[in-house]
């Protein structure tokens, strides 16, 4: 706990972090991204562009030279990141130790498990498009006896959820179906049912027939209706209703504003 004095330097040309779709303007922001998003930065984050940014924009020439040398000597990305964090005045040694442990644990994971952790992380920060890319890589891996069905089922399930969050319901449905094949889980069946209700009900009937399922839980319809009711009573819908009651000029302005915000929100998810 305490107050940290920031450095005076703010980059004129920021460094763009594609995975997060944000720009970095200061050394504190760089430190924060490295520390808070280890899964994003452990691979492919350390680059010559980053060294240039640290040197020319953040005016930290000696740090840039040191890490450039480490990079040339093929020192791992995570060790370079730890070196950067240790050089900054931003994190305590206890925080750095915690970070090192976290990195070590990630490195102990199998490749597919690491990719899943990365994809789940992307999902957690609502970068659904990027999460799907990582889930797809795992799914394209050649069949491996060491990869359990349960694991594959989870991958397809999470991919389905990512598609659903992007309103790509057909793709979501397909992914959930694959997941059900592996897991035979009632909750996944419920998700398939809900998604089919948003599209064509016959799809679900066919799916039940194909899988020899005779009936579904009677409470699902009630749950679906309750969820729909809640969604319709949400603040977002109230706000939309209030816009619709405005005069035409103001309505147009607010709709444009809202649409722009939604577009941006959606783009960030991709």
């Amino acid at each position, binding site marked *: 706990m*305490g*107050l*940290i*004095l920031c450095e005076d330097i703010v980059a004129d040309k*920021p460094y763009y972090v594609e995975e997060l779709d*944000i*720009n970095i303007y200061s050394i*504190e922001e760089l430190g924060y991204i490295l520390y808070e998003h280890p899964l994003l930065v452990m691979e492919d984050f350390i680059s010559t562009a980053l060294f240039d940014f640290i040197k020319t924009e953040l005016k930290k020439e000696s740090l840039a030279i040191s890490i450039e040398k480490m990079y040339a000597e093929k020192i791992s990305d995570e060790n370079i990141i730890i070196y950067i964090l240790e050089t900054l005045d*931003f994190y305590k040694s*206890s925080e750095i130790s915690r970070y090192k442990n976290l990195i070590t644990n990630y490195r102990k994971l199998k490749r597919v498990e690491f990719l899943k952790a990365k994809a789940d992380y992307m999902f957690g920060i609502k970068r659904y498009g990027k999460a799907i890319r990582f889930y797809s890589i795992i799914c394209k891996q050649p069949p491996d006896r060491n990869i359990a069905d349960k694991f594959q089922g989870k991958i397809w399930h999470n991919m389905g959820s990512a598609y659903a969050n992007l309103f790509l319901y057909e793709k979501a449905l397909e992914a959930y179906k694959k997941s059900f094949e592996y897991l035979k889980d009632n909750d996944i069946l419920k998700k398939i049912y809900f998604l089919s209700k948003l599209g064509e009900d016959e799809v679900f009937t066919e799916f039940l027939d194909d899988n020899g399922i005779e009936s579904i839980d009677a409470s699902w319809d009630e749950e679906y209706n309750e969820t729909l009711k809640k969604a319709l009573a949400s603040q977002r819908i109230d706000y939309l209703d209030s816009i619709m009651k405005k005069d035409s000029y103001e309505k147009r302005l607010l709709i444009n504003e809202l649409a722009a915000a939604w577009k941006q929100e959606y783009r960030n998810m991709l």
Partner: protein
Amino acid sequence: MPVVFGIDISDEGTSVASDKNDEAVKFPTAVVKERDSDRWMIGEQAYEMMLDNRALKTDKLYTMIIKGNMATVGEIRYTAQELMKIFLKLVLDETTKFLGSGYPEYIVLSIPYIDDKIIEKFVQCFLQLGYEREKIHIISRCESFIFYVMSKKKDIWNNQVGMFYLADSNLHYFELRVQRSAKNTVVYSESKEMDERFNLGIINSTSGSRMADRILTSCAERMLGKKVFSTIFLSGKGFEKTEWAESFTKYICSRRKVFADEDLFAKGSCIRGFDFASKKPIFNFKCICDGRLDTGINLNLIKKDNEYSYEIASAGDLWCGKSITLRLIADGNQDIEFILSPVDIYKNTRIIKVPLDFMPKRPSKTLRFELGISFKDSMTMILDMKDVGFGDIYKASPQSAVHREVNLWD
């Protein structure tokens, strides 16, 4: 040695001291403009022309610049600052001519009271006359009094030092004390305008001078009381002669040295000027007086695992024009703590907590805010704090800002 001028200015007059002359060169604080010409003048010649109705006079230039007044001279409106610039230029011209010296490299101007705006106006005048900002210093009369006294031998200031300054229609009392410790030496000075006042014209009559003497004696008894003084100084036009103040002089001369010096402030400013001009400080003490802080201000910050103290201001620093801007990150704290350390050893160090409740809710390490620190006067610190966001990660919320005044004194 560079040429240094110490100037004291008030409505009563302007004195210029330098090391070239024992006595200061004096001018009324007024400018005179020749009718139907662009010629400006000061001093005796100017007054003669004015008496012959060949010129127009504008006086009380010091009050004018404080109030920011305008004056119309020969159908042209001038700002107080423009007139002050003209006046100061002529003062420098006339003084250098009189002394046969070059123009000063360093100028220290003493004024009755320190105020941020007045200082800037005077600095602007000198900048427009071609002087460098670093070589222009505006100080209070208290400060010039300190340097005047401290340039004397130790027996002059071993105990307290008092001074009565008597001008046309005001009487001021100044007091100085030196506090020595193993760590440092601190010199305090403060001044007080006396409620008692009289027009100097009355001392020309027997009954008037008797009354003025009684007033001064009563002031001296009240101010000096039972305190131990090494020296009492007398300054100002009222003490050009002291025969009229028989009982006052008798009182102040008992058990202490008494000196009269009409040019005390100008000389003190000149001494201060040499201190500024010197590569190494000539005097080794902290100066606590009008225009300077009597409290050190620090912030506790962290760097990695260590806490350290960051100095915002040191006791003895000028509060006028002092402005600091820092960008800080609150890592889990609810407030910001200022450590106030009065230079006076009899006062305790205090901690003042200013809450950071104006900040939006964000994760630790992303609560970045800007802290602006300035001073309203020697006892009031002004804090301007605002959320500056954390880049694209957390945008700044413009409504998250706060303005606070912190009293530095108990």
